Structures are given as C-alpha cells and as structure tokens.
C-alpha cells in the first residue's frame, strides 16, 4: 500500500478497499430499504439515533423540572405524553432515556461480540484440549442466569450501566459462542480452510479471513437478538435496582418508576413499554434484514456489478 502509484490501475486499487466498502455498505442499506421489514427497522433505528443526539441539546422540558401540583397528568399540548409522579415531562424523560439505552445496546453488543468471538476461536482451536475444555466451560457458565451475574456484579460496582453491559455482554457472548459453534466448526473443517492453511495462513488469519466471514449470518442474527434482549434486560435490571442508577434517564427507569401505579395511571406505563417493544422488534428485524442483505450469496447486487463496471 505504501508503494508509489505508478499508473492508473495501481491508483484505483490502492484506494479500492475503503471505496469498495462504502459501495458495499450502500448496496446493503438500499437492499434493506427495499424490503418492508428492513425499512421499518432502518426508520426506527435511525429515529432512535437521531432522538438520542437531539436529546443531548434539547428536550421539550428539562427532565429535572418537576411540579408537585401537576403529577400523573394526562397527555396535553404542553406535556405530549403527560407527566409522571414528580410532575416531570414523560416525553422528555423517554427522549433522554433513548441515549442511555442506545449506549447500553451498543456497548453490550460490542462486548458480547468480542467475548463471543474469543470463545468461538477457542471452540474451533486445533488444540483439542482447549476446544473440548471450552465446550464444557461454556455449557457450565451458560446455566448461570444473567440476572444472577448482574446481582453479583452490583455488589462491588453498585447500580450502574457497567453492571448491565458486563452481565449482559457476558451472558450473550456465551450464547453467541454456543449458537455459532456448529457453523464455525463446519467452516473450520472445510476444504477452503485447509487450502488456506496449505497456503501458509496462520491460525488468527484463518479465523478472521475465512471462518468469521463465513459465519457472519449467524453472528449478525445473534448480535441483533442480543441487542433486543439488552433493551429488555435494562428494563428488568433497572426495575430490580441493579441497572441504571436512579436519576439517570432510561426507558427501564421510566418503566420502573411508573409500574407500581399501573392500575391507576396505565398510560405512563404504556409509553415506555411501547417504545421498548418497538425498539426490540426493530432490532430483531434489523438483524434479519442485514443478514439477508449483507450476504453475497443471497444478495446478487453485492457481486458481479463491480466487475462489470470496471471492465
């Protein structure tokens, strides 16, 4: 890459990698957009990201603005989704909560994917002792409920975003490894991996160039399920008091403060519940649509076109 470009072809291919990636990303997004479920997922996730960013600089009311004379208000022009038990604006709290939830989802999925891939690498390792040992270890660890891990982590860490990310990332990473294991084994024992090794590829290179891309469909779906479950787990753990600390806005926080009054003021529970549901559905659909759109074997638009354009 560092060599001086000396002609047209060299220049074209030297910048080819990032441009090719952008082009492929464009094709993937257009393919997802073309399908109803993919479009729904893209719109919801796009709106989520947008609202998170906007909430950093603007919300209809300050989330700290309370009013003891105006609690549990019904939706009105001033308070679009009404107010909660302190008289604070529900809509503003949900807006502000979206950024916390986005952060939790992103960090949890990143941690789960990194941890899960490390486990998959161990599972397909050629050191048989390591491979067999990790199967047993994963099966043993997977039996520990995520909530229990979170409760144990909350002892030293207190209620915090870190607890949710670590507990969920750990649990979902184990899950990802166990779900991805069969297809990873299939790839690891394939002739193309043997061929790569016969060409002198090292174990890490075989893993990242040949195994991971070929199990990507499983990884994408598993990560999107993890993302959806992370939203639900945030709500659950925050309700139990080991999730997001009180005072930090999150959808789980909005739910847990109003859920006790569900029989009296059902609407204040409905809004965060609805948002959590829509977000989880969108995340799961996003994974499905991405899996289909990003696989060159199922998406003909990802292949060929490039070659024809260059010839």
């Amino acid at each position, binding site marked *: *890459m560092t060599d001086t470009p000396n002609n047209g072809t060299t220049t074209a291919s030297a910048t080819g990698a990032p441009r090719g990636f952008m082009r492929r990303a464009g094709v993937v997004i257009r393919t997802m957009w073309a399908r109803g479920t993919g479009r729904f997922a893209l719109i919801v996730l796009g709106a989520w990201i947008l609202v998170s960013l906007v909430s950093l600089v603007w919300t209809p009311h300050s989330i700290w603005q309370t009013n003891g004379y105006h609690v549990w208000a019904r939706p009105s022009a001033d308070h679009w989704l009404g107010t909660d038990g302190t008289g604070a604006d529900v809509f503003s709290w949900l807006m502000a909560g979206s950024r916390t939830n986005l952060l939790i989802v992103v960090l949890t999925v990143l941690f789960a994917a990194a941890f899960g891939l490390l486990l998959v690498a161990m599972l397909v390792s050629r050191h048989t002792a390591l491979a067999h040992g990790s199967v047993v270890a994963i099966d043993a660890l997977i039996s520990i409920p995520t909530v229990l891990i979170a409760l144990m982590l909350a002892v030293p860490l207190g209620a915090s975003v870190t607890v949710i990310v670590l507990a969920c990332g750990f649990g979902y990473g184990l899950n990802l490894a166990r779900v991805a294991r069969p297809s990873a084994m299939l790839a690891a024992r394939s002739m*193309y991996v043997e061929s790569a*090794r*016969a*060409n002198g590829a*090292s174990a890490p290179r075989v893993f990242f160039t040949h195994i991971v891309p070929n199990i990507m469909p499983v990884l994408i779906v598993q990560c999107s399920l993890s993302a959806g479950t992370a939203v639900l787990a945030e709500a659950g753990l925050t309700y139990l008091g080991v999730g997001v600390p009180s005072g930090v806005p999150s959808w789980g926080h909005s739910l847990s403060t109003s859920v006790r009054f569900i029989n009296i003021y059902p609407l204040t529970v409905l809004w965060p519940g609805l948002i959590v549901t829509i977000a989880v559905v969108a995340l799961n659909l996003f994974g499905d649509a991405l899996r289909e759109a990003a696989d060159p074997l199922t998406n003909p638009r990802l*292949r060929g076109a490039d070659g024809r354009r260059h010839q």
Partner: protein
Amino acid sequence: MGVVINDLNVAVSGTPILDGVHLDVRDGQRVGLVGPSGSGKSMISRAIMGLLPPTATCTGSIALNGRQLVGLPDAELAALRGAAVGMVFQNPGTALNPLLTVGRQIALPLELHYDVSAGEREERVRAMMHKVGLADDLYKRHPHELSGGQQQRVGIATALITSPRLIIADEPTTALDSMTQRHIVDLLVSLVDEAGAALLFITHDFSVLAHATQYCYVLDAGHIVEQGRTSALLDAPRTPQASTLVSAARALTLHADTTSTEGTSTGGRR
C-alpha cells in the same frame, strides 16, 4: 532438489498410516502417487505440508530442497506452505472460500508471503489468470458463479502464483467431468514444465496418471509396493496390488478415455 522422503512413518492416534515410505520428486519431474482409497496417499501430502492432524506422530525424513521438514516448528512450516510448496485440491468447489472473489482468492499466497503493493498484486493475479485461461472479467466474481473447470483453474492459479518449486496435486481432477479433466491435466502439466517445478500428482485414475506423469509410485496400506516409469508400470505391473489396480482401472477408464477424446475434438473447451 525437489522433495526426498526417507523412511517416513506416520501414525494417527497410535494407528499406523504410513510405514517406511521412500519417495523422490526431483525438480522438473512429474511423479504420480496411486493407490486405493485409504492407502495413505493424502497423508503423504499432508506430511510434506506439515498439516498432519494434531494427534499424528511422524518420524523419518522429509527433505524439501535440502531442508529437513520433520520436527520443524509450525511457524517455519507455515512460511514454506504456499511459497515453496503449492497445493491443488480435489474438490475445487469446496476448496475456494465462497465469500472471496477470484482475484482475492488467487492473491492469498502473495499476501501471506510477499510484501508487494496492492497494484502489483493485482497485476500478477491478472497475469496468472491469463496463464490458466481464466477470462479477465472473472476477477471480481465469486466461486459459485464459476463452472467446475473454472474453479479448478482458480485452484491451480492459487497454487502457482508464488512460483513454488514443488506442486502437490491431490486428485485434482476427480470432481470434474472427463472432458474438463483432460484440459485441467494439460494445463497443470504445461505450467509445471514451464516453471521447471516438481509435481507430485496423487490420483487413483490411471488414464490421468499416464497423461500427467513420467514416474510413479503405488501405495498400498501405507507401504510403497511398486515404483517405476509410468508407462512400464501400466503395461506390466509386477506386484499383485498394482495389477489389481491397473486391471480395475482399465476396465473402467478406457471407455471414458475414448469418449473424452471425442468430446474434445467436437466440443472444444467451454
């Protein structure tokens, strides 16, 4: 130079697979290795590549261009694989990573062993594609868009891109139809001869063997039972194992061989 194997013993989980194998492939030589399924043919190629299963034990000597391979650490073996030894696989459809384009696939050994710029790499890959008879517009195609013959051409291009001194072809034509077989063997032979490299051709197909090799070894249950010039061995096998193989192959392949010649004259390559 080439590869010289002396008294090679390989056992997998205690079961002996190869027993005292002697085998020589010199530069510029095309050597066949035949034997029934399960006789240990592929184990010899794996031993040369240093790709024996983790539970295998290996004793004896494998000298590649004068360098002892048995007991070499894996990192040093990996530096030789794909650079000093190229390998063509049996089933081209599964030996190519389904997600890599033809261009990237062929470039893999170059990426691993040589520090060349992306532009130069592409130039070399395109030159190699031209050599093995792959059209230029296949560069950005994926393996599943190719025919079996084209896929095996990609396999050959990948094996030869680094100009290795030894090429091991492990039943490279078994998965192809008889007409394509002939083209692939012709291509392999001409490229190996042009490079002056050594070829170890593993097969159980005698019609291909006569065509591709000058000398050959017959392997049976882990022992080399017979060796000699390919034509002589096919005409008059001396050992019962070899004559069984030859007569069985003759009954099966002579018919296929005549039809494949006719096919070539009328059909031509795709």
